[in-house]
Structure formats: C-alpha cells, structure tokens
C-alpha cells in the first residue's frame, strides 16, 4: 500500500483485467457470489452478460409463478450487492463469438471486449422434437419467465380449455402441474413407455402414473407425435358455432390423435453451446454429444476459459441439477483466485421431490442395472406406495432405491448410499411399513457425510460450527448455509446440531423459559399436586424473576385445564395473551374476529338472521369457516361487548375461536337426512361439542364425526375422528391439518356412544397432563414411547390405574363451564377494558377498511395514505 491512497487505487483499476461471465442463471449468479467471496471483484473488473431481460431468478421454483404471478418473488440477485462490489450486469446482451487466441468476446451488437478470465455459464435450452407444426403460436417451451407469461396469455383465451405437455420427465410433470393450476384439462404425452424413465423403474413409473391420473391428468405413454395439425381458423370462428372445436390436433405414430388448445414441450434439455458450435475457429473442445468439455477444475481446453453448470460436460456427463452447478461455480471461483485444491468429481444425481403432490425419490442405481445387484420391493397399491431397494450381491451395500408415494425413508437411505455404510441384516426392514426401522444415527455417519447438498455442507462442518459457538439451528444456518437451499435437509441439520451439543457435554434442556426450570408437564404436576391456583403462587414457590409471554399463557392454560376458573378473574387476566384477554382473535390490523359457536354447523333460520343483522349493523366481514361456523371479522375492540350482547341475547355462546381449546366438531348430516347415513353423526357431534366446549388444552382441538364410511366430515384429519359403522363407532385420534398434516390413527373400533365418550374424556385429560407446550395431539401421540399400543393400554385397559381420576377431572371441567362472553358482558368492571383509549371515547384512526367483493377488508398502507389525502381535501 503506497502513501498516496488515491494514486494507488487508480493504478490498481488501470491494471485490472476483465473477468467476464456469460450467463446470469442460477449457476452464473452463484459464481458471482462465490467470486465476491474470493475477492475476485477487487482483482478484476467483473462483467456479467445475460441474454434475458432480468437478473438471475430461481428456476427450481418456476412453477410457483403461476400461483403468485410475481416475478420478484423468484429473484435471486440483490442488485445492491452487485453494485457495491462494482459488478456490471449487462442484461439483454447476447455474446456471439469468442476469440480465445486474442482473449476477447463479441456481443450481438458488435462490441468487442477483452477478457483476462472467461466463465461460460450459458446453461441449457429446452429440447423440442422436430415435429411438423411445432411452430404454431400455441406451442411453447417451459424454461423462462417469458415462456410462462406466454403460456399464461394463451391459457387465458376464452376458448382455451385443454393443454398437452409433451414429455413425462421431471420438468414435464412440473409443467403439467402448472397447466392444472391454470384450470386446463391437462394431458401428458410421453414417448417412452413410462413416466420419469431416468429416475424410476417401470413399476415406480406405473404407480406415479396412477397417482397423477387420480389428480385428473390424463397420461399417455408410448406416444410418438408425428405431426401437429392446426385448426386456428375453425377454433377462432368457433365463438358462436362449435364450443368443442380445439386449436390443434396431435397425430401419433400409432394412428391415434389427440385434440388440444395448447402444447408445452418439456422433453428434456440440451446444453447451450451455440457460442462454441457456431465458432469452431475458437478451438474450444466440445463433448461427443454437445456441451463444453471441462476438466476437474472446470477449465476448458482454452487458457483462461471455464465452463460451469448445464452447458459443461465433465467425464462425458451433463449435470441437469442445480447442486452440481453450484459446486462447479465454487470450484471455478476458487480456481481463478488461485486455490486449486478443490476439484469436481462428479455429482450424485439422487433426487427427492413432490410432483403434483406425489412424493417421489430416486437414489443411485434406481433401475438395478448393476451386475449381481439384488432388488427388494414393497408395493401397496391401495395407498399408491412403491418402494424398491437395490443392494450389492452380498447384501452389504446400498446401490440404489426408488420411492413413490412415501419418501419418509429417503434421507436415511441416501446417507447409507452416499457413505457406503453397512446395511442391517435384513435390508428390507429399511422400506417395510410398521416395523422398527434401523435409522441411520448421526453418530454412524462419517465426518464427510453430506448433510446439505445444496451448499455442500458436511456433518463435519456442522459439528465444527457448533464447536465454535453456533449453538442454535439458526446460528448454524447462518454460519454454514446448511438448510437454506431447498430445505429438505432441515431435520438432519437439527439432529446433527443436537448430536454435537450432546457430544460437547451440553444438556438439552426442556425448560419452559428463563423463569421456570421445568417443562410444561412438570409444571402441570406441580400445579395439580400442590393445588396451586395462581401464577404468582407458582412463580414464588417454583420459579424466579418476573414471568414472560411464554410462561404466563402456558400457566394460564394449565390452571384452566386443572380448575377451569373463569379466565378473566383479576388474578388470571394478566396472564392471558391478547386473544384470551379480549375473547377474540386479534387480526393483522389490531381488530378482532367474532366467532360464535354453531355446533355441528346446525343453525336455525332465526339465528342465521341474527348473525346477518349483527354483521350488517357493525359492518363486519362475514365468512363461513372450514369448521362450519360463521366468522365475523373487523370488530374493533370497543365494539366487542355490544356485538356479544346481541349474540348472547339471541342464544349464542362463545365459540372459543381465540383459545387453545375445543374449536369445532365438524359433522355431516348423518342418518337424519342422508340416504347413506349409518348413524346419527349430528347428534353425536352436538353432544361432543357441548361436552368439551371451553376445555383448555396444550393446543387447539378439533373433532369430526362422519355418519358413514364416505367420510364427508373428513374426520380422519382431526385430533379426534368418529366414523359410524354398522357395528358402532370407529374412533381415530391424532390427525390434524396444520403445518405438518397427519392422518389420524384408528384407536378403537365398533364402540357404543357411551364408551366412545369415556375414551375421549380420558384421552383429552391424559393429553392435557402429559403434552408439551403448544404440542398438537399428533406430535404428542408420536412422542409417546410405546406408540399407539401404549396409549390404548392406558386408556382402554387402564394399565396405569388412572382412568377413574381422568374421568373425574374431566367431569370437573365440564361442571365448571361458563360462557366467557355471557359472564363478561354482565360485569361492568370487565367491560371497562374494552375501550381503545383509557381517556377518550374515540376509536383507533389507524384501523381503516376498504371494500372488496362487497365487504370490508383492512386497507393496505398505500390505500390508507390515499384515503387520508381524500379526507383532508
């Protein structure tokens, strides 16, 4: 560093050569990020040329564009980073020639630019089979945002009702999903005899086909399209003649035809190597089947020219996944920076994905082509599950796997495969249902086991991050980037962090918060055993400090579950979070929702009219919920007592939509009206909702009662599900529709109503006593050692000798029930709190509504400022 900083800085810039990157796709952008990390932006002037008119975006999630139609959500580039690192991004600029002898490139507009280092990240282009008629404006590819916009525009034409995807691979099924999203009658046409021929074997492909057809997509395999015949005129004239006339007809080699309105080609990709192919004089060597040849340092045969991603060919292979492209980008950046210790050694092409809601996984030699390999199969046609393992002849190592319909075993199998770990004595146990699976413990993995393949993070690097002070998952993510790509490895990252913390001698604590060194279950026992009735008593005796937003509502819930006192008693009120405090659900703008109980969704005309009248008088947004109730939204806090006075007067009770307690018992109409009804589902639903209303629990509880096996109430997706059979009720437990949906498990069959109610009493109380804070019944059931059988033993056979106590405690809760709103509106002291201002009768002027679809909704910020301006004027 010289004395005069300015002069030296200028001198450096003058000496800076150009580092040119052609392509700003996912891999090209990843290279730029790695280049900045390596400090290459200080060494070179970096120029990035992009053919598209926008910076890099996430092609992996391209299909989501049809749902949100917001291109910015896919954006990967933080332009301010490019700017602050002085990286020049040239959009809409195609590069047409490379002169490797003189180290320069030429743009389509004829500009010549010299380079010191050149990185080709040109990616790939979609392959369109050479079929006559493919130039029709209703034929498209599925690759860029611009392609999606074109597809969208055609799909929106009123006559366009039907779409065909040519290609039944991974991308083709993505495209098919997009057409379904657009509301088109969708077909998939595949040349080969099965779907996803690269990743799946024939049986796996068949199961996938059946599952996709069940979603309403027609799959035609073994179809060779010969010609696309256009009927553009007749279709456009069809407005007032033939509504069924389609734009196109596909003519197949077997003589059959298929009419359609649009075709999306998704028949594979080809490396984008035109820049080399069109300039053979540049001397850059290509692969035998196209693509740009590279060595293990991502170097082409020309000095200072590199290629990375889908345009590159390494060892005769092209890698059409983003993870290997990212590896190449890192290696290339390190290489240019002078660190050549990293080399590219190929990539594992195993994949796990969800295609149109169907889980699919493929590992290694999925087709079982390795000589002497053994295949193990499990097939469950009823549930559409297919699993296959391929092992070595000696049964010791995993060579490959196929999973369709259930990919729960994927991570476990992948680690066995990647790390060459000895298989258990009976490898089939790895894929069989209902057997204890020998899980791949983190301790069995070698340090170089890849945990996050998006960012190449190994077990060893996660462990050392923990060792260096990253004690939480969030910290580990920030330090290593593990789990920040596709997120599929999140459970393993968590396990690895816990494993390493334990190894380092940390105790994994289950303390509720800093004020109580007890778990929720332990606090429950303390409260129950010592008969504690208030938070302060508990804090003085068993905790320390002030209490917080975690322990206060938890203790409030336990107190309610034990004694069921009115939640707004003065000593209990300050413990309630805003929802319980104001007996309504707080919404984004600070207003509340009003949800009266409508048991089983059964409501008289008179009551329905009252709901309408109240909604109209207070100008509330009205919606029928998924739980057969009526939501009234947009109630200001100060309006709640007036609203509820009217509702209570009309015979409504609180629906506890704000509480962690029983919400609804969804029901079908049952044998009163339904010609298939086997039993009285309405009667049972009303009885259950009345019995458990207001019972506070660790999490909200939902129930469902179906009057026959047709399951119209969707009872198996609830915490408690009842289905009528000829022999009595079948009771299911532990289902939910939350973030991790789970089907309920069959707990008891053919029981009478009295037995059913007794079982539910016992299970709810046992759940209340033993569950963790905010733990749903599904997670609780999974956490029980001994599983469903253990729970059945406790509840049905009384193996712990506690069922009488459980029933008595439930009885107490039921006896003590009061409608919290009825109690509140009769207490003038309580009503005082329902004022926005303690010193004024005014309302909150920041609560502003606009009208949409004839009802109110909260105004957005820009709408609020617009409204204010109007008011002032």
């Amino acid at each position, binding site marked *: 560093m010289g004395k005069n900083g300015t002069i030296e800085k200028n001198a450096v810039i003058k000496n800076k050569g150009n580092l040119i990157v052609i392509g700003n796709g996912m891999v090209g952008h990843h290279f730029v990020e790695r280049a900045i990390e390596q400090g290459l932006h200080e060494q070179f002037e970096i120029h990035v040329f992009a053919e598209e008119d926008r910076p890099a975006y996430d092609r992996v999630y391209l299909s989501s564009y049809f749902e949100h139609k917001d291109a910015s959500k896919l954006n990967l580039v933080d332009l301010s980073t490019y700017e602050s690192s002085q990286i020049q991004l040239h959009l809409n600029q195609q590069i047409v020639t490379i002169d490797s002898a003189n180290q320069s490139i030429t743009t389509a507009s004829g500009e010549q630019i010299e380079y010191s280092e050149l990185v080709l990240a040109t990616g790939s282009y979609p392959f369109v089979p050479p079929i006559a008629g493919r130039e029709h404006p209703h034929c498209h590819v599925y690759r860029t945002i611009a392609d999606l916009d074109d597809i969208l525009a055609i799909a929106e034409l009123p006559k366009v009702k039907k779409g065909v995807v040519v290609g039944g691979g991974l991308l083709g099924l993505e495209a098919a999903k997009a057409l379904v999203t657009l509301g088109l009658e969708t077909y998939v046409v595949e040349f080969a005899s099965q779907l996803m021929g690269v990743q799946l074997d024939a049986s796996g492909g068949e199961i996938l086909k059946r599952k996709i057809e069940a979603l309403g997509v027609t799959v035609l395999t073994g179809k060779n399209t010969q010609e696309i015949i256009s009927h553009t005129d007749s279709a456009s004239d069809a407005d007032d003649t033939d509504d069924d006339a389609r734009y196109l007809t596909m003519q197949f080699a077997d003589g059959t035809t298929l009419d359609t309105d649009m075709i999306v080609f998704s028949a594979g990709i080809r490396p984008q190597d035109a820049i080399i192919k069109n300039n053979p004089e540049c001397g850059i060597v290509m692969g035998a089947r196209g693509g740009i040849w590279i060595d293990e340092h991502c170097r082409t045969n020309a000095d200072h020219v590199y290629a990375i991603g889908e345009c590159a060919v390494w060892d005769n292979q092209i890698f059409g996944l983003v993870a290997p492209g990212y590896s190449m980008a890192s290696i290339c950046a390190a290489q240019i920076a002078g660190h050549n210790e990293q080399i590219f050694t190929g990539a594992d092409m195993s994949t796990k994905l969800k295609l149109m809601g169907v889980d699919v996984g493929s590992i290694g030699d999925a087709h079982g082509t390795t000589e002497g390999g053994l295949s193990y199969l499990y097939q469950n046609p009823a549930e559409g599950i297919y699993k296959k393992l391929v092992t070595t002849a000696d049964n010791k190592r995993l060579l490959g796997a196929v999973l369709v319909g259930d990919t729960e075993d994927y991570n476990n199998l992948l680690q066995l495969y990647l790390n060459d770990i000895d298989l258990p004595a009976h490898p089939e146990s790895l894929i069989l249902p209902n057997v204890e699976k020998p899980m791949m413990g983190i301790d069995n993995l070698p340090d170089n086991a890849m945990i996050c393949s998006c960012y190449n993070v190994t077990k060893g690097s996660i462990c050392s991050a923990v060792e260096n002070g990253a004690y939480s998952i969030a910290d580990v993510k920030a330090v290593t980037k593990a789990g920040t790509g596709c997120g599929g490895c999140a459970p393993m990252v968590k396990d690895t962090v816990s494993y390493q913390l334990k190894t380092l001698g940390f105790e994994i604590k289950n303390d509720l918060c*800093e*004020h109580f060194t007890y778990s929720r279950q332990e606090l429950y026992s303390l409260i129950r055993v010592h008969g504690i009735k208030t938070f*302060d008593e508990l804090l003085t005796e068993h905790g320390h*400090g*002030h*209490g*917080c*937003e*975690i322990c*206060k*509502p938890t203790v409030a819930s336990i107190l309610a579950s034990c004694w069921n006192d009115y939640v707004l008693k*003065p000593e209990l*009120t*300050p*413990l309630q*979070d*805003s*929802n319980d*405090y*104001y007996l309504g659900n*707080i919404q*984004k*703008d*600070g207003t509340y929702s009003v949800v009266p109980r409508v048991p089983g969704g059964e409501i008289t005309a008179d009551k329905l009219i009252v709901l309408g009248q109240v909604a109209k008088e207070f100008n509330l947004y009205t919606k029928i919920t998924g739980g057969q109730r009526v939501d009234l939204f947009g109630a200001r*806090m100060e309006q709640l007592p007036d609203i509820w006075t009217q509702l209570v007067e009309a015979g409504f009770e609180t629906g506890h939509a704000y509480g962690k307690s029983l919400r609804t018992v969804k029901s079908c109409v049952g044998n009163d009206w339904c010609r298939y009804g086997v039993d009285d589902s309405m009667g049972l639903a009303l009885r259950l909702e009345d019995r458990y209303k207001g019972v506070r629990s660790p999490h909200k509880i939902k129930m469902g009662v179906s009057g026959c096996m047709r399951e119209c109430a969707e009872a198996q997706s609830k915490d408690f599900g009842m289905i009528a059979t000829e022999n009595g009720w079948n009771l299911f437990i532990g289902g939910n529709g939350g973030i991790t949906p789970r089907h309920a498990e069959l707990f008891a069959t053919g029981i009478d109503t009295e037995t059913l109610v007794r079982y539910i009493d016992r299970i709810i109380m046992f759940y209340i006593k033993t569950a963790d804070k905010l733990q749903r019944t599904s997670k609780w059931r999974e956490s029980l050692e001994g599983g469903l059988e253990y729970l059945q033993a406790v509840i049905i056979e009384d193996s712990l000798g506690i069922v009488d106590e459980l029933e008595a405690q439930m009885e107490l809760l039921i006896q003590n029930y009061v409608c919290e709103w009825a109690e509140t509106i009769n207490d003038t002291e309580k009503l*005082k*709190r329902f004022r*926005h*201002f*303690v*010193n*004024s009768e*005014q309302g*909150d002027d*920041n*609560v502003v509504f606009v009208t949409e679809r004839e009802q109110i909704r909260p105004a957005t*910020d820009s709408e609020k400022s617009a409204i204010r301006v109007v008011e002032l004027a």
Partner: protein
Amino acid sequence: MKQHTICPLNDILPETGVCALIDGKQIAIFRTKKNDLFAIDNYDPFSQANVLSRGLIGGTTIVNEAGMDEEVLYVASPIYKQRFNLATGQCLDDVDVTLAAYQVTLNKDTVMLEGV
C-alpha cells in the same frame, strides 16, 4: 413541562396496559404488579398496528453496558411478538428499532404523563 391527566390508577389492572390518547398520539401505559408505571408508543412498527398496550408484560435478564446482569421489563407485541423495553422503548429483538418512551408518574391515585 406539560402534565397530562390520564386516568385513575385503578383503571389499569396490575400487570397489564392501557392506551391513552394525548394530543392525537397513542401512548401505551403499563402498570406492573409492584405498581411501577411505564409508557411507550402504542404503535407497533413491525405489524403497523396500534396494539402494544394489549401485549403481555415480561421480564428478562440482560447484560447491561456496565457488564452486569440486569432484569429489564418489556412488553411483547400481541401480533408478531417482538419485545420492547418498557423503560427505554428499545426493541430487544432488533437493535435498529427504538420507540419513544415517556415519563409517567402517580399523583395521589391519578396516573399522569409528562411532556409529549
């Protein structure tokens, strides 16, 4: 400095907050179980709603500038749960966010607020 009369102390249940309107400004006033009083802005910048007076009061131990453990009281927003120091208005979850905090006193049994 101008003093504003807010309300009788009994209008604020111990360990809860209320919202006062002072010259068009919304101010959240809290009373702890030891009858200490605090006042900060009622506007929650994270949810852009006037809701902080409805949050739960909590305490946590932090290391202060002198390097000593100190228990601070805070309110957790009822919307997205960010915590704000009751004495200073500083957000405990985002160092860049600080709300205005106000002097609040008791004159006999009346809650008074100073200088807005």
